[in-house]
């Protein structure tokens, strides 16, 4: 957290004039996206717990109240249902609220507003009342948070028709996806992988990268041997696993970053798996009835005749999120991903000699 604080944008400061290619953190990119959205559209309002004077517990809203005034970046009473419920009313009046749920598990009191109103207001009013609001939710583990500070709740949101669910894994996507989410005419659950908040890459605030649209996955690393399908906090794990597999096993793993869980970019995923013939889905949230179950089912339906092996999942255990001193045993890591890759029936004796042709070269 100290890193973010130390490099945060100062209240009232001009947009930073940093040279291109100077590394920026994801938290800074999110801050910049909020700032640019507030500047671009007077109907955008940021509110939530501690988002004003403090700048958010992760400093993502740092300086916004000072620059845009407390009416546009507002500290609310401590009440998640109230935050989401008032956001509904503001959206009904034509505003674009951007609200912060301070931590993943703190969002649960607001769940009724999400599932009973936000997700279905457009539908029940036949388009008369769209809900152009963005719910920012820092999620996931790996930062040593105590209980209720590390949940991965994406499956709940995914199972609610009417919500978009997106999650960036890179600094550039954090900016681009948040801008797109705020501009979207539909409600977006914007999941921020909190352990990547301080990750840097060479995204430049001077030349903010745009993402094409919400709902497009991206191939982060091309490969021919198998596809790793992942998103958010597990992307760096998969990238590292792919490098290790190439180095140690000569396997070229393709890594697909979903970026958006709803809408789901089936075409990119299916095209990749049809090329490679093997797939592993990797995420932190629980495996049972988790996001990977949906992905694996869709891949099985669409790629059955291309598959050399069952679709495997590497996920968190089906347990309440563990205490921080044990979380390293729970979170999918490089070894677990590589272990799953090794279980992808590389020998596949039963198909030997049939020359299916879809298994990547260099497998043996």
């Amino acid at each position: 957290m100290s890193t973010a604080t130390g490099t945060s944008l100062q209240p009232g400061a001009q947009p930073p004039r940093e040279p291109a290619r100077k590394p920026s953190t994801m938290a800074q990119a999110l801050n910049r996206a909020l700032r640019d959205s507030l500047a671009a559209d007077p109907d955008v309002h940021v509110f939530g717990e501690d988002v004003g004077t403090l700048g958010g517990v992760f400093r993502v809203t740092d300086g916004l109240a000072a620059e845009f005034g407390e009416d546009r970046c507002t500290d609310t009473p401590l009440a998640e249902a109230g935050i989401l419920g008032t956001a509904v009313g503001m959206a009904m009046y034509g505003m674009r609220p951007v609200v912060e749920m301070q931590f993943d598990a703190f969002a649960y009191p607001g769940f009724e507003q999400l599932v009973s109103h936000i997700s279905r207001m457009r539908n029940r009013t036949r388009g008369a009342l769209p809900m152009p609001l963005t719910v920012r939710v820092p999620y996931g583990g790996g930062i040593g948070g105590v209980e209720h500070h590390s949940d991965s709740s994406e499956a709940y949101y995914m199972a609610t028709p009417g919500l978009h669910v997106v999650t960036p894994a890179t600094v550039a996507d954090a900016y681009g996806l948040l801008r797109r989410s705020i501009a979207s005419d539909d409600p977006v659950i914007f999941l921020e992988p909190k352990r990547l908040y301080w990750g840097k890459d060479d995204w430049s605030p001077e030349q903010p990268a745009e993402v094409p649209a919400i709902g497009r996955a991206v191939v982060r690393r091309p490969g021919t041997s198998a596809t790793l399908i992942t998103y958010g906090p597990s992307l760096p794990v998969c990238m590292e696993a792919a490098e290790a597999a190439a180095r140690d096993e000569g396997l070229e793993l393709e890594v697909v970053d979903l970026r958006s869980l709803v809408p789901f970019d089936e075409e990119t995923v299916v095209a990749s798996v049809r090329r490679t013939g093997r797939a592993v889905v990797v995420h932190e949230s629980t495996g049972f009835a988790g996001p990977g179950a949906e992905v694996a089912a869709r891949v099985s339906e669409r790629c059955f005749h291309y598959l050399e092996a069952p679709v495997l999942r590497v996920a968190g255990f089906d347990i309440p999120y563990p205490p921080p001193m044990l979380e390293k045993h729970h979170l999918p890591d490089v070894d677990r991903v590589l272990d799953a890759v090794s279980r992808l029936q590389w020998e596949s004796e039963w198909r030997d000699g049939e020359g299916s042709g879809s298994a990547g070269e260099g497998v043996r």
Partner: protein
Amino acid sequence: MTVLEQSGAYHLAPPPAWRPRRDPDPLLPDREPLRLLGTGAELDGELLLELYGQLVRGRRFNEQATALTKQGRLAVYPSSTGQEAAEVAAALALQEQDWLFPSYRDTLAAVARGLDPVAVLSLLRGDWHSGYDPRASRVAPLSTPLATQLPHAVGLAHAARLKGDDVVALAMVGDGGTSEGDFHEALNFAAVWQAPVVFLVQNNGFAISVPLAKQTAAPSLAHKAVGYGMPGRLVDGNDAAAMHHVLTDAVERARRGEGPCLVEAVTYRLDAHTNADDATRYREASEVDAWREHDPLVLMEQELRSRGLLDDAGAQKAGEEAERMAGDMRERMHQEPELHPMDLFDHVFAHRTTQLQQQAERLRAELEAAEAEGIPAAGEQDRHGQAHTDEQGSRK
């Protein structure tokens, strides 16, 4: 005396001076619900007549809607019989630019605000979740989850004020709804933001079967306002003049920027919770009969007659006008709604996802196959698989 004081080891600084954030006295409600009818209070005769006309229409609406449940035309109807005064006062206290946030029982308030009865009954008929355009009518969709629409009213009123618009939101909830967390959060937000909102609690005695005594230990529901820092007003909910007076006052107060207000209307639900409920299981007939003596229509009619503003001819005219409304409503409700199964995939998102597109194509193929075999589409069939009869008993 604390342990430290007893030990004498430390000098304790006196605590910083405490003062209440606001003087609670002006926020406290009266001990008795406000009444105007029958008190000789100075009242606007034209307003009384307008309220009377709306009460007669409202009673007839409740009767007609209940009859429609028996004819299979409404899936369910939560009657507001006995509560018409609060319903129509809520609608008449608002100006055109204001917003109404009704709960599922508040169909009458929406109709009194000028909405088409058939459109308002869409939710309860089951042909769509909401049959009117909330933005055009400034009536939010009828809310089924309790109290969840209250924070919407706060957010909308707050947004309107931020935009500099002269808009007040009136949010309606029942006595049971005051136990919900959203009630608390909405009132707290409204008071902190000084949002131009009026909360109307219709205390009709029961949350389905649970009486108020098992719902709250508060002296009155109006007392709850004080804890949030807003005034609470206690009104006889069957006295349409008092309801209109207090709500208009609260709305104009909010409009002047003086913040939110909570109004408790003390009333009674003469019918069961819905047509599916058996109220004899949880209350005595004598209790219901006692409240029938305090019927909002009777109270208003007595007032008007004693003032010489209404005679038999006037009462008959009001009844005939209500009958015309009911007849029109009945006739249109007996027409089969036009349903299009393909509408299921509209308005889920601004743009259909690939997955929804695929599902829509699958349904379309099913419908086309069924049509080829001469089977009507699902939505064109009677919900109950039965032929309807109209009020004269003839087969439709």
